[in-house]
């Protein structure tokens, strides 16, 4: 029997009658039973089914009937909804309503996951309490049901679905655990790790692997509440809070890795990457917070607003329309809109920009219901579902739309004046004992619930009327200027809009007053909105210098013939005068004299120099939210490939300096840094498309002052290691741990926990991953080579390596390459003996050497840096040129594909106006895979186009503000960011960018 009851309880939990409550009943029982019929309404039963002049009947908490020809039960209370619309109440997915934010302190030593940002043990329903005032606020948005969760941490635990009726807390809970919530922000955790986005992603992956392992251990693993809580939640949707559209693609990789499906709480910028979203089955929850136009009355101010921000302002309202047209699944959230008015204004705007009304309704009702698998109870007004409904004036998305009543589980909540309030707008004629007004006309217009009026003294002279409404009672007053006196009216208005009451004149006499409705307002007075909207085709990146889709066709030339250039081959042929080069399908097809080529696009290279593209071995551009996971001394588990940012303008800037390839490195905050990413600077392509396909795997290591926190300030004097001695021992410790791990994987009977950090160290020991090590002084360089030799691996590259010249012979013996600065020194103590002759000495001793930038500005001038080896140390011009092309290709093990001008290699080519080592050389074009990504001509065109677009948008913003939209003062974002970046760009790259 007991079991049956429990089963029944779960099935019909949402409609639990009083006998199911556990609370003791005090006093006399007063159960509410109610039948209500809403008549003559336009009823939007679902997003696809609408009845006009229809009836909806509810009984207690449920809808019992809905349609055009419905029998109204005798016992029903009838609410006349003539002219009104009825919709299902909205379901809000994103909220922290009703949660006791002060979480009960849990025992520090509880069996939880080691990292505090993993809060899977948190279940919102356990901390939820119905709160009247906030509930009232949300009901005004039209919301009947809300999914609530605690917005703190990376894995945030489960969210609960609750209704917003003023009833018992327990009764309001619809579904205890309706979704799992996650984010990419550490939140309130006081632990150092993770300090960057790359660390956050690594932590999520490690946690999910730990879950797999825990399951495989079948109870043999040490108890872990966080993992067990997560396991219990399987099969409910996982929602990720993201910072921008690119995060979706970062997280999709994790979803694939673990065969999961993620959904995303978006930002409104998803349209910029809509192509990639089309194929996803995830839902994107989209807020309707649109940027305001900038106040640009001052021409100087316009300069500090970026074209990117202007485009965002222009296109963001079309986000939903664009997503919808591309078959992306989306839900709408009110999060980000401060007031119902704000939200409905934005919704109206989205509809003006092309979103269909029924789609908007779906995304607010049925969509979320299906998403949370409560579509049998919620989301439409079909028979049998919950009586969660809103009665509105006007159709959703129309001018004048407002919510009059919000019914939740059969409980009525009047928002404005209620559904039965009379619309008094129209034209009237007065009959009154007051001769001054008798026979005169007046007009009531404006908003339904806050109308204004005009009293006609005669056909041409008007005076405004103050109107206030309270249900059927209307008060009105107006000034008669000629007698300088106010007339005041108080009247009852009936359904036929007949006013009956009194008027008090200037003498204090209360006289009879009636007014009869004569006609409706004319069309123009109801201010129908007929604004035509237009917006630019989004560029990618959607900012200055971004590409339009149509421009790619023009750029994707199959074949080029560059004629009569001085070709720096970097091969045995050396520098060839007056040679031609033909590219085809992204490769170098042929090099020779007087080549001909049918259908080729011809570029005259007379007097110019053609080289292979510059390769920057050490770069930190095109990444986002932290290049250092400095929380721990080893962060081998983090991957720079996870945090690429294809929209960094520095990609374009460096193309203008002839750079085609950059190795993106983790910073040097810790001895074992993160995994590197190798990119080609394909500006205008997405993160994944930037990656150099098939590039060998690398990891960043670091030595010296940064690793031992010498310049981090007084607070940082405890993390091991604090000396170079400790650095050495730290490596021994970590690699020995990795060896033990590898052995254990081979021999252990039980499943071995996958350790992402040690996995990577094993790859190094197995020769599957190369090391680039940040290093300066000779002792530490020597030390790491010893560590490597004794543990049986090789160091591939010493990067920076400013004292490499002191141990060049040892480096040659170890077979390591050197990637150095041309002439930097004296920025910290460990570089006080750095000399600009370093690269020349290393080259002459026989170490494969290159120059790197580690600096977004200098990267544009790596040809200058290479040329300095001619000045300091007397390398030949050809040797010097290889320092920034072939030599880095060799050390990255990609010289089979790039690094020289050779038939069959990638067509990564740069045409220079002069000897590329000369200060006077300018880049004419930079080509990657046979596509010209930068050229002087295209740059000039883009600059002109940027200016045209900016002018257009300035005018448009001015007009919008003139038309009554609220504006904001120009942001100073660009200047500020620039400063922050400069701080971080230096070689003390360890400084945390994420605060």
């Amino acid at each position: 029997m007991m079991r049956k009851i429990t089963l029944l309880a779960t099935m019909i939990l949402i409609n639990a009658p009083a006998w199911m409550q556990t609370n003791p009943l005090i006093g006399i029982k007063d159960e509410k039973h109610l039948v209500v019929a809403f008549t003559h309404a336009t009823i939007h039963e679902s997003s696809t089914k609408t009845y006009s002049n229809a009836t909806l009947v509810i009984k207690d908490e449920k809808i019992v009937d809905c349609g055009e020809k419905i029998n109204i039960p005798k016992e029903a209370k009838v609410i006349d909804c003539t002219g009104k619309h009825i919709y299902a109440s909205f379901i809000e997915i994103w909220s922290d309503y009703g949660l006791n934010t002060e979480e009960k302190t849990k025992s520090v030593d509880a069996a939880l996951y080691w990292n505090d940002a993993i809060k899977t043990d948190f279940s919102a329903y356990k901390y939820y309490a119905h709160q009247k005032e906030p509930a009232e606020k949300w009901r005004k948005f039209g919301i009947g049901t809300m999914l609530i969760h605690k917005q703190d941490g990376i894995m945030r635990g489960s969210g609960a679905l609750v209704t917003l009726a003023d009833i018992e807390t327990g009764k309001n809970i619809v579904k205890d655990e309706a979704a799992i919530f996650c984010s990419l922000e550490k939140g309130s955790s006081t632990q150092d790790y993770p300090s960057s986005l790359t660390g956050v992603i690594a932590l999520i992956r490690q946690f999910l692997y730990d879950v797999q392992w825990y399951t495989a251990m079948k109870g043999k693993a040490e108890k872990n509440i966080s993992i067990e809580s997560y396991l219990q939640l399987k099969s409910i949707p996982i929602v990720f809070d993201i910072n921008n559209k690119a995060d979706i693609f970062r997280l999709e990789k994790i979803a694939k890795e673990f065969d999961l499906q993620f959904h995303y709480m978006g930002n409104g910028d998803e349209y910029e990457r809509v192509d990639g979203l089309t194929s996803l089955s995830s839902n994107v929850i989209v807020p309707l917070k649109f940027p305001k136009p900038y106040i640009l009355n001052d021409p100087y101010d316009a300069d500090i607003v970026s074209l990117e921000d202007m485009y965002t302002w222009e296109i963001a309202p079309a986000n939903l329309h664009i997503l919808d047209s591309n078959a992306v699944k989306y839900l709408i959230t009110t999060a980000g809109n401060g007031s119902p008015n704000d939200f409905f204004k934005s919704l109206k705007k989205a509809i003006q920009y092309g979103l269909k009304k029924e789609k908007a309704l779906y995304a607010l009702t049925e969509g979320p219901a299906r998403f949370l698998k409560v579509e049998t109870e919620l989301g439409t007004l079909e028979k049998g579902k919950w009586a969660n409904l809103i009665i509105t004036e006007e159709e959703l998305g129309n001018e004048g739309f407002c919510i009059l009543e919000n019914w939740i589980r059969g409980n009525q909540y009047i928002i404005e004046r209620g559904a039965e309030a009379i619309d008094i707008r129209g034209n009237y004629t007065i009959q009154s004992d007051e001769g001054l007004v008798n026979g005169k006309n007046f007009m009531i217009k404006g908003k339904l619930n806050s109308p204004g009026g005009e009293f006609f003294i005669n056909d041409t002279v008007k005076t405004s009327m103050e109107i206030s409404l309270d249900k059927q009672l209307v008060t009105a007053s107006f000034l008669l200027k000629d007698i300088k006196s106010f007339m005041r009216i108080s009247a009852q208005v009936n359904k036929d809009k007949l006013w009956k009451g009194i008027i008090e004149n200037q003498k204090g006499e209360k006289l009879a007053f009636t007014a009869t409705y004569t006609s409706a307002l004319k069309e123009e007075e109801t201010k129908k909105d007929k604004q035509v909207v237009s917006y630019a085709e989004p560029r990618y990146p959607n900012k200055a210098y971004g590409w339009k889709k149509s421009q790619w066709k023009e750029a994707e030339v199959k074949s080029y013939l560059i004629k009569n250039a001085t070709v720096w081959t970097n091969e045995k042929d050396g520098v060839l005068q007056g040679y031609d080069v033909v590219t085809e399908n992204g490769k170098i097809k042929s090099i020779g004299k007087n080549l001909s080529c049918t259908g080729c696009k011809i570029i005259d290279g007379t007097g110019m120099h053609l080289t292979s593209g510059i390769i920057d071995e050490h770069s930190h551009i095109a990444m986002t939210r932290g290049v250092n996971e400095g929380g721990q001394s080893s962060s081998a588990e983090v991957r720079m490939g996870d945090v690429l940012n294809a929209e960094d303008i520095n990609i374009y800037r460096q193309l203008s300096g002839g750079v085609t390839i950059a190795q993106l490195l983790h910073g040097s905050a810790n001895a074992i840094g993160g995994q590197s990413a190798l990119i080609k600077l394909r500006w205008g392509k997405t993160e994944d498309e930037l990656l150099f396909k098939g590039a060998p795997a690398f990891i960043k290591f670091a030595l010296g002052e940064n690793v031992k926190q010498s310049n981090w300030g007084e607070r940082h004097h405890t993390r091991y290691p604090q000396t170079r001695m400790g650095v050495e021992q730290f490596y021994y410790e970590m690699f020995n741990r990795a060896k033990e791990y590898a052995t254990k994987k081979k021999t252990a009977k039980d499943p071995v926990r996958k350790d992402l950090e040690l996995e990577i160290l094993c790859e190094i020991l197995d020769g599957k991953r190369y090391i680039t090590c940040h290093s300066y002084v000779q002792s530490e360089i020597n030390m790491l080579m010893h560590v490597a030799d004794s543990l049986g691996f090789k160091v591939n590259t010493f990067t920076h390596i400013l004292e490499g010249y002191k141990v060049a012979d040892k480096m040659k013996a170890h077979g390591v390459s050197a990637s150095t600065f041309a002439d930097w020194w004296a920025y910290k103590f460990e570089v006080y003996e750095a000399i600009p002759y370093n690269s020349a000495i290393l080259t002459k001793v026989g170490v494969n050497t290159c120059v790197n930038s580690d600096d977004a500005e200098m990267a544009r001038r790596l040809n200058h840096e290479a040329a300095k080896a001619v000045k300091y140390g007397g390398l030949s011009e050809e040797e010097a040129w290889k320092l920034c092309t072939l030599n880095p290709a060799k050390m990255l093990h990609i010289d089979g594909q790039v690094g020289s001008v050779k038939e069959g290699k990638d067509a990564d080519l740069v045409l220079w106006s002069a000897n590329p080592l000369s200060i006077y050389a300018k880049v004419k074009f930079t080509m990657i895979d046979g596509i010209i990504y930068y050229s002087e001509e295209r740059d000039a065109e883009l600059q002109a186009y940027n200016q045209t677009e900016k002018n257009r948008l300035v005018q448009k913003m001015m007009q919008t503000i003139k038309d009554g939209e609220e504006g904001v003062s120009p942001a100073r974002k660009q200047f500020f960011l620039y400063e922050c970046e400069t701080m971080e760009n230096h070689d003390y790259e360890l400084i945390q960018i994420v605060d």
Partner: protein
Amino acid sequence: MKKLCTYIWMFVITIGITAQKPTPAAKQTKSIRIYNVKIHVGNGTLIQDGEVGFVNGKFDRVNDNSKTHLISNSYDINIDGGGKHLYPGFILTNSTIGLREIDAVRATLDYDEAGDITPEVRAITTYSTDSKIIPTIRFNGVLIAQSTPRYGLISGQSSIVQLDAWNWEDAAIKMEDGLHINWPNRNMMIYPSKSETDDENALRKKRNITIGKIKDIMDRTLTYMKEAQHEVYNGKCEALKGLFTGEKTLYLHVNAEKDIIESVTYFESIGVKKIVLVGAYEAYKIIDFIQQHHLSLMIDRIHELPKTDDEDVKLPYRMAKILWDAGILFTFSHDGDMEVMGSRNLPFNAGTTVAYGLEPEQAVQLITLNAAKILGIDQQLGSIEVGKDATFFISNGDALDMMTNNLALAYINGRQIELKNSQYYLYEMYMGKYGLEVK
């Protein structure tokens, strides 16, 4: 040619004895004539076949041999320049040279005094002639510099020095040449805290308070100057007096166009005599204003990124051409990252302006005569002219290009200075270790 070679060879011998630091050169005692050189005069002209003569540290002969031929037997030493390039010593402006050695070592940093308003501090007495960085800068042709305090609102007073001296007294050309004032940027929070960066009003308020601080000390200085007798000595007002008497230049560090107009208008209204804009990134947008107010500029280094995403990627490279064509008197500094040690690249920054529009001699002029004019030392320095200091160098090739910048000889006040430096000695030392030959 042979003579020059002999000469250089002799001078190599002498260094063997020198330690890690080059010894400052002794006073010129013998008159010297150098002939068969291309003279980059510094005023925009090039003498293809020239000769110079100098006695007691001053030029007494600068001649274009293609036009007139002079009798040459009056000089003690005659050097064949072998057709190489002769330039006036390059001038590094707005630099913390001598005030900092190793950026990350606090004990070596001396350019930022505590407090917002510190006009009383002056660079000269702290300027370290022993900095190991200085000889590496001379190596590329920079022979004169302006050593400048930094940060705060009024950073202090800069000094002009020559780069071969036993001590700061020897080095000084001008001890207190001007005051450096940093005008707050309207588009940037001065000391941003997290909450304030989002609040327009907080920014404006803070900025007004900050500007108020500058105006307050200026007001008090004007009052102080009117006092017949000072009851209380005020070091800050004493330091600022020179701005109103014309003895000191106001180096006004300001970048945004509206800030330039606002600050210049203010300082002119209170009677500041000579204003040089430093940074002046957006000056190119208000050329008319710059011209009408006869302002000269010390713009940022050329090798910089544009300041916003939208700007021309090459804007900093093209800036010199834009300003030159507008007829504005300007030079550029090497202010910023890797500031002092990187300033040996000053000549190559000038080279870039040639790639982006200037004539080579105009580029030379930027870091010679223009810099000298702006610093007010052009009577004495900045070009190869009779009567001026014999502060110059000879390079084997084009000094504005890193491939060919290669100094053979350099003189400051006629004293032939040592070019080798600690970095060169390490080079020799390790080439020796590996049995490689230094060419």
